[in-house]
């Protein structure tokens, strides 16, 4: 076994395992997330020479395609909507919890492309340049996509009343 190759992979794995796992867990069930992480790093191991120095956007791109393949063969896509709409609100204040719930519900109603753009920036903390690499488009194109996604999220928020405390408790 090529020690340099293994070391390179181990370094990348150690650095990004948690982020890739987080990416998968935010989009699918725990079981499916485990499969997604394993498959993503398997692709990386086999194609290590193709992995760019800034590996995380590349890994997110692979994970996104792995998830898309999973969705085609199973009904796991529902997991994200459930995750977005049905999670317990987090926040120290009730109004913050209400807003978080409304935001997740609105996010769940967006197209996959819009949702991905917003999640990469807001939840995974990627810059627009790195997020563009993750989705495989130019920085400018991603900027436009993100801008439109924000507008559509705002529109969704404007359309939907904030959930009541009762609905939050019920979820």
């Amino acid at each position, binding site marked *: *076994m090529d020690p340099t190759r293994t070391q390179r992979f181990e370094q990348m*794995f150690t650095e990004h*395992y948690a982020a890739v796992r987080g990416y998968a867990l*935010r989009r699918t069930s725990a079981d499916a997330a485990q499969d997604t992480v394993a498959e993503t790093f398997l692709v990386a191991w086999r194609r290590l020479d193709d992995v760019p120095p800034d590996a995380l956007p590349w890994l997110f791109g692979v994970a996104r395609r792995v998830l898309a*393949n999973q969705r085609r063969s199973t009904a796991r896509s529902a997991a994200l909507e459930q995750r*977005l709409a049905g999670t317990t609100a987090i926040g120290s204040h009730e109004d913050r919890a209400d807003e*978080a719930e409304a935001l*997740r519900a609105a*996010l769940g109603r967006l197209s996959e492309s819009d949702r991905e753009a917003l999640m990469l920036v807001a939840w995974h903390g990627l810059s627009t340049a790195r997020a563009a690499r993750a989705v495989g488009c130019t920085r400018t194109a991603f900027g436009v996509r993100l801008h439109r996604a924000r507008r559509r999220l705002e529109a969704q928020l404007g359309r939907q009343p904030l959930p009541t405390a009762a609905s939050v408790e019920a979820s």
Partner: protein
Amino acid sequence: MRDLIERLRDADPMPEVERLSAEDRREADALLHRLTSEPVPAASPPRRPRIRGLALAAGVAAVLALVFAAVSLLDDEPGGPGVVERAVAATTDKAAIYHTVALERLIGADVSAGAPGREAIFESWNAPDGSTHQKTFKVRDGRRGQLLSEAAGRLHPKTRGRFAGPVQIYDPRTNRIQHTRFGRSGKGTSLALNPSVDPGKSLRALQAQGRLRFDGTARVGGREAYRLVSGPVPGFAKGRTESYEYFVDSQTYYPLLIRYRVASGSDKPLELSIRYLVYERLPFDRQHSQLLKLDRHPGAAEYDRDGRRLNP
């Protein structure tokens, strides 16, 4: 008022998910061990461009159009496409070259798996004498990017279902030019446009025949367009059905957008969307006739259809 992204960040249902517990770390270690025990591929096979599926589809679309041209001219069925084609060909300006640049997108079970947005730019020059020159490019910022393939030749029908005429195909990856001939195809009733004749006249003729019907107006690329649709029609291959949706410029009747769907048995339907960025008539003069030839590719190795090298 806080920024939307900031508010969204606070709405993350799993803000701590990147923090690994001891059990998570054990899982990670086990996975790492499993992966690094996997044998490494000895040598990666040369990677084919991701666009291969669409390049193929663009080729298929072009071939469909060319096949239609050839078959139509041979078709003696009364009222069939051959009649339309002959009528249009008879009135088409012989001194014209039709130049198109189209953004093609392919959606379907065969090639779209895991890669949404398979697309390519397809450019062609076609003359009523059957001369054709076609190029397929990667898409970069909505424009022509890297050249993927190029072909130039002259197509004319010889016997029923068989084409004649030479074609040269250039592969930029290998810098090789293959000299070959057009292939053969079965008879069909496709409503694909013949790119060698006036598209406006073809579409009006098909509409007059009732094979396309007017179905409202729309705006495509800021221009008023008529929507012309076909019902499902038998496809080129046995057991396949096709349907066409044309959006044509309300002034010129030149296509602005075509949506072509083909279904085969239980397979997921394949959809090809062709958005014309350019569809224009050029004069068939000495200068423009150069556009019908393969571009110059210095240093390209040329081979005949039997694989024999033609140039030193």
